[in-house]
């Protein structure tokens, strides 16, 4: 007999598991110890979607005191029905990875290192570089005298990691700047 964690919780929730299982001759000590330690006890369930392939398996994130304590496949979602592959199953370690970049970083021309900067500084600096490049290179007309308003010297690549809402904004912003070199994962 196999009992997965969700079933186990359902049964214990109904208050009958100990009795019926011990009657079946199970040694319940490990299970009880496990229950006492359940990381997700009292955690809030938040529905999310695996950030890898486009099967878009649903994932339940368990959050306690603002911290992510566990992730698992969403059993109610009709496509993955609780299952996840290796990548989706690594959601917890992926999110909590110690290799994450957590501060804006800046590498000055010809420098051999990254420096930490604050958001205000980097946004200001990037905006100025964009304006400089645009003011210098925006092509208003082509050789035939037709209006073209395009900026060929600045490009935008990516990303299928964006949400739809972010993609819509990216497209709008880039066309407003005149960007035409625009591409992302759909072409590779």
């Amino acid at each position, binding site marked *: 007999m196999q009992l997965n964690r969700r079933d186990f919780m359902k049964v214990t929730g109904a208050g009958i598991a100990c009795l019926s299982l011990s009657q079946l001759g199970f040694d319940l000590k490990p299970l009880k110890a496990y229950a006492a330690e359940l990381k997700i006890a009292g955690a809030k369930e938040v529905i999310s979607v695996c950030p890898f392939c486009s099967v878009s398996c649903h994932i339940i994130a368990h959050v306690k005191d*603002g911290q992510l304590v566990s992730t698992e496949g969403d059993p109610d979602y009709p*496509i993955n029905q609780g299952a996840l592959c290796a990548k989706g199953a690594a959601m917890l370690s992926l*999110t909590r*990875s110690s290799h994450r970049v957590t501060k804006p970083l800046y590498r000055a021309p010809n420098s051999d290192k990254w420096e930490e900067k604050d958001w205000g500084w980097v946004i200001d600096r990037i905006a100025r570089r964009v304006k400089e490049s645009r003011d210098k290179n925006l092509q208003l007309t082509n050789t035939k005298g037709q209006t073209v308003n395009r900026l060929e*010297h600045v490009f935008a690549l*990516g990303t299928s990691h964006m949400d739809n809402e972010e993609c819509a904004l990216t497209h709008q912003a880039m066309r407003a700047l005149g960007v035409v070199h625009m591409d992302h994962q759909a072409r590779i």
Partner: protein
Amino acid sequence: MTNHWIDIKNADAILIMGSNAAEHHPISFKWVLDAKSRGAVVMHVDPKFSRTSARSDFHVPLRSGTDIAFLGGMINYIIEKDKYFKDYVVNYTNASLLVADAFGFENGLFSGYDPAARKYDRTQWAFQLDDDKVPKRDPSLNDPRCVFQLMKQHYSRYTLDDVSDITGVSKEDLVKVYEAYSATGAPDKAGTMLYALGWTQHTVGVQNIRAAAILQLLLGNMGIAGGGINALRGEPNVQGSTDHTLLYHLVPGYMAMPIADWQTLADYHKANTPVSYDPQSANWWQNKPKYFNSLLKGWFGENATKENDFGYGMLPKIEKGANYSYLFLFDRMYQGKIEGGFIFGLNPMNSVPNSNKLRKAMDNLDWLVTVDVHHSETTDNWRRPGVDPKSVKTEVFLLPSAHRLEKDGTVTNSGRWQLWHYKAVEPPGEARTFGDMLVDLMNKVRTLYTENSGAFADPILKIDWPKRYDADEMARRINGVFTVDTKVKDKEYKKGQLVPSFVALADDGSTSSLEWLYCGSYTEEDGNKTKRRDPKQTPMQAAIGLYPNWAWCWPVNRRILYNRASVNLEGQPYAPNKAVIQWQDGKWVGDVPDGGWPPMATGEGKHPFIMTVHGFGQHYGPGRMEGPFPEHYEPVETPVKSHPFSKQLNNPCYVSVSSDMDILAEPADPRYPIVLTTYNVTEHWCGGGETRNVPNLLEAEPQLYVEMSPELAEEKGIKNGDGVIIESARGRAEAIAMVTVRMRPLKIQGKIVHEIGMPFCFGWTTPGSGDSTNRLTPSVGDPNTSIPEFKACLVNVKKADKLTELA
């Protein structure tokens, strides 16, 4: 996908080709196995034996880049053996349309080819029109100029002998697949085709898929449950990012990017709005002006007026035929013509061909903004092995981005379901969402342009740009709102209220929508439908695994595209046990039909393929760059000097760039006799930038390897586990040899050709894991999409004396 993930279970035959679904879309395979458990035959045609092959009824290895020959042979088999679904072919496809006399085919070239420009004059491929400008048809399919006869003639050349000779597939294996798959030509049988990058990443990528479309139309497999052409899309929101079009040649909603010749909005609409004179053709794209003008209204808000062409004049215009895709961008960068740019969540230094050139090209930038969750070969290119950072002038930014669990918003799965995900936790440290950064950055640019003079500030200052990023607000803007009080049928909508569906979008500025296909996802009546989690179904829907109340799907919550082709002229399903829609008591039940018109037999119906001008599924596709019928051409780097179908060795229109670093091997080059194909592994995602930073995933797949057959290994004196060097005309890579019968030597034109395979997910920022496989692959691409040919190039392999990239 024309269908959706769960729908795979309805198939009677599943052809997986150009995909390793079990390893790269593992959960999709649940539905493949579901179909199999109920009797479906599952076939895997792929150079490599994988876990997909292991679970299939049979695996058929073929040489990379010969899919059209393989599929062309099947088209021939179906027509010869009369296996096609005649009623469907006559009524719903363009098989009966007559083609004008200018069209012809000789020696591997269609009529109208200009060798200097490497382009066709496609006007020579037009249909014959009658006096009312409606295409002429011959429903008997006997007219020698009808598409069916032309197709029959074209593919009669794809004999079993010739196909076997060039693909390396035995005749028995060919017939095994052809026979099993063509059995789905029976009206109540369904066959699905599952593909991925193994079909698209070729210089004939689009035509690979066209060949699949021809087969599906011959067998009556489009629009039905368990059928369709199903791209198993790879990246997390690549469907959505394509719909919202982070691509140079389109604007959101699959509409053309303006070109210089279309100076006014009227010019744009004239050039882009198709006209049909057939009363039975819905010609849905005739509505394009409504969608395009609503997009402009969404972009420029109050500043978009009828008088100023809704801001059209402010948009950038590209030159006709100009190519701004990756290959050309990096080539221009290599030539020093690009100043700066943004790379959001992408690792092109690993995942775009000819990485050695790309890595050098990036050194020419003055500034570069990278946005990512980890350091990658792209963010840290300036300190790559063998380069002194002091010699790299680029000012580089790396902005920390939030991951999926750290933000609200929607993604769209491969089956077009739009799915809301909720924020669970705050991003770590100072990481922020792409949306937050972009809104702030653009607002900063706007301030700079307000406070200072600058080049043509209009588009920057006149866009309707939010003060702060809010996913819900953006979801509303994407759906679209009324910009004035409006009445739709009997219902009043106030200015600012959500548009209920794209049918209500208008071209007069009274509506806005940032993506017409998503209009209807968020309404006044039902709220944000992407959040729905209701499994409710009718018994008819339950029978085919249709969940109309779970999330929302574009367009208009239609789960199976072209579904009116699943019923006969009376509106009754060809496969009653897995009906998608049915005409009952004067209305359609089941899925949302492709247009609500009554069945064709009433005389008031419309042809089911509503997105094509004439309303038919296209066996003959006159819109493609290199011809209306797929034709076999060899990969640009090929192990053969000739092929049996014509004297034209390669795609006559493939795109490429030339620089001192874009070197190609000769056909049948003795220096590079081995075919290389590339792929990925279950544990890593694409370039691997993310997954290599997850210890358990890296532990499972730690190092670059190369799979080769025992026969090749013996020839080269290589043993399993040896370090080896793989070399192409462009670069070299180190890998660990994995000697395995999963790769088979193939007999091509009487000679043995070896093929090897390598994943491309490893890079130098993960020490000891190896470095980019794409240092080997070439910068050549499909003429329709410019997707590079990652899947077939020429290399050689030898045992390494010493390894430096692998620990």
